[in-house]
């Protein structure tokens, strides 16, 4: 009986576990193996070099700077996106003027919910094309064209948004946030709708204002969802490959400019892997990325752990 049960469980697990091993775990192991070699990417001949790649990594200014850029994204993208999404979700679901009927969203909230979701259906590649047109560095760009018409920018010296070291990271951040807010608005809305109306009504009767009902009721009851959002957005911030490589000034390949001011770990890794042919070295970067991402998820899940409130 127990033997049969064991087989039964294993039978079900076999395919998914095999897929997981082959397509997730095995590549990780391979990457780690390659990171200890001077593999150049286009053949299977290489020498074992021990930890040389890792030693070089911590003296590589470009990669270290790229880690800082990821950390900057990691701090600002989740915070801004979640705050905006929470604010909008609250306004759409419970921010309306309180009438006798109880709690409801602002006027036109159904319309907003749909409109906010639009950006989410665009793929990253389309986003890049779209925002390249917004940030275009001459009068043909949406932002520059607008500012030139208003007389705020000289037509002879338009702002090169993506070629300004102090602007480029923020410009990229705007794209991600614009794209994500809608999705998290819908996510938070769904969570908010599962909060029983009578809780709000009770608060209203007790004289709670909008701010109070948000901080005392909505936010605590949404904490699980916020935590999930944080992890997802953290993963987005650790990546950023598509936007950086297709929007920023090219340093050989995969964007990253000006002067590596927008390089993130993934673009530095790809440039080393394919463009410089330092594939073993790039694998070491991949391993560091994996470690950082793992640490990040553990820390996030620990730091945001709270008592679950049942309702």
């Amino acid at each position, binding site marked *: 009986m127990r033997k049969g049960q064991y087989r039964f469980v294993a039978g079900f697990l076999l395919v998914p576990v095999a897929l997981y091993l082959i397509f997730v775990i095995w590549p990780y192991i391979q990457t780690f193996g390659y990171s200890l070699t001077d593999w150049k990417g286009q053949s299977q001949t290489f020498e074992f070099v021990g930890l040389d790649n890792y030693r070089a990594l911590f003296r590589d200014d470009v990669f270290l700077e790229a880690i800082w850029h990821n950390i900057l994204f990691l701090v600002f993208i989740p915070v801004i996106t979640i705050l905006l999404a929470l604010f909008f979700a609250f306004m759409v679901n419970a921010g309306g003027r309180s009438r006798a009927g109880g709690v409801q969203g602002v006027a036109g909230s159904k319309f907003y919910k749909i409109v906010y979701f639009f950006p989410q259906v665009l793929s990253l590649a389309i986003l890049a094309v779209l925002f390249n047109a917004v940030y275009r560095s001459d009068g*043909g760009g949406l932002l520059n064209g607008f500012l030139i018409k208003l007389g705020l920018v000289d037509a002879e010296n338009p702002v*090169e948004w993506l070629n300004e070291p102090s602007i480029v990271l923020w410009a990229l951040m705007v794209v991600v946030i614009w794209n994500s807010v809608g999705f998290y608005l819908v996510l938070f809305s769904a969570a908010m709708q599962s909060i029983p109306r009578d809780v709000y009504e009770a608060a209203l009767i007790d004289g709670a204002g909008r701010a109070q009902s948000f901080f005392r009721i909505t936010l605590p009851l949404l904490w699980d969802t916020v935590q999930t959002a944080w992890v997802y957005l953290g993963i987005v911030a650790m990546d950023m490959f598509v936007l950086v490589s297709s929007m920023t000034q090219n340093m050989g390949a995969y964007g990253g400019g000006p002067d590596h001011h927008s390089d993130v770990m993934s673009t530095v890794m790809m440039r080393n892997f394919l463009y410089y042919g330092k594939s073993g070295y790039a694998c070491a970067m991949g391993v560091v990325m994996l470690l950082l991402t793992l640490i990040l998820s553990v820390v996030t899940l620990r730091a945001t752990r709270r008592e679950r409130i049942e309702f």
Partner: protein
Amino acid sequence: MGSTSAENHGSGTTGTSGVGRRDLIKRSAALGLISVPAMSFLSACASGGGDDSGGNNTQGKTSKSNPFGAQKGSKLDVVVFKGGYGDDYAKAWEADFGKKLGITSTHTGTQEITGKLQPRFNAGNPPDIVDDSGAQQIKIDVLYKNGALLDLGEVLDAPAVDDPSKKVRDLLIPGTLDPGIQEGKVVALNYIYTVWGLWYSGKLFKEKGWTPPKTWDDFLAICQDAKKQGIGGLAHQGKYPYYINVAIMDLIAKKGGIDAVKAIDNLDPKAFVGSDAAQAGVEAIYEVVEKGLLMPGTNGLTHTESQTRWNQYKAAFITCGSWLENEQLKQTPADFDMKFLPMPLLAGSKMPFEAIRAGSGEPFIIPAKAKNLPGAKEFMRHMLSKDWSTLFAKEANSLTILKDGVDPSVKLRPGTQSTVEASKAAGSNTFRYLYPDWYSEMDTALQNASNELMAKRIQPKEWLKRCQAAVDKQAKDPASKKNHHD
């Protein structure tokens, strides 16, 4: 309530099946440990096996007209970069190859060379012949260092298709094989004859009464006049600083002569800092920036955005190679009259005005592990025949490295025609930098410095320092000693 009882039931059984789960993990871990060496053993076999199966199956009898023994009925796997030149020319070749030799080709035209081919190279299963070009090419130096490329010497020393009494290499424009050389061996055939420099619209110049400038002062004067009339002076494809380096490095080469070129290629400790030519070149370009003679916003534009603006008469000049006309076919007005201009001269230049950066682009390679090596070699030998060169000029409006390789019946577009005249005028006064083909990382650093210069974030002095630092760093790599530009 029902659900909680189900959970309880479930957790009740974990006590027993928990052992099983741990067992499973242990077993899979053990399996993993075994499979690590097993897989590397297998892959070693795979790459080793690739060597053997190389030519055996497809080697036929050799003869004077078939020097490599390409076998009738065999198959050829051709991968072509489908960019500015399209891939119709390759289809025309393949059809002709099928007719003449009875070898059928599988054709792949793509922009994603790296994405499609890196896994195949790595697995030891590459195509037979590849046009490894475009933004996503696999760098030649990288492939070479991996031992993935065939030494093309055998093809170049074979009898030419047009004149079997001569070797293939003797019918090519001198110097055009150089960019494909790695450590003294030709491993890539850069097929398209390319010239680099400035471009302008004949129509715009006629309208404004400008004559194409021969000196840098005249060039600046035209830029200034253009600016007064609301037109930008110089446009460049700022998002890819490769292009402005065409202008900077050309000025350096013409000012300092071929020695300045070799100093950079050979990683001289005085290639930039301490070189008068380098200083004069970068200061000349910086003058354009400082005087506001760049097309507004050009530093952040992509190549197509920038070139299209230039096609709309928003700038007098643009820097580019001779693929420009093909790339801009759709955007160029019919009466635009595209013209090539060698880089104007700085005072005291060692090279004459007519001197141009000329060379070859669009590297074709034969992977060392190609399945049909004889077929691939024969295909490449035919590429260097007048028939195929003319086919190429017809389909892709461009010149090939075959001397006098285009049948006069083919009418070229104005831009390409002007490059034919410019190369005739240049004669043997041509030069070519080899560092971009040898040192990708150093090239990146140079481009990076130029991007900062154009945005006025650094001055010429700092540019020279940064470039010298990149050169010095490259010189420290022991592998760099194997390359030499003589």
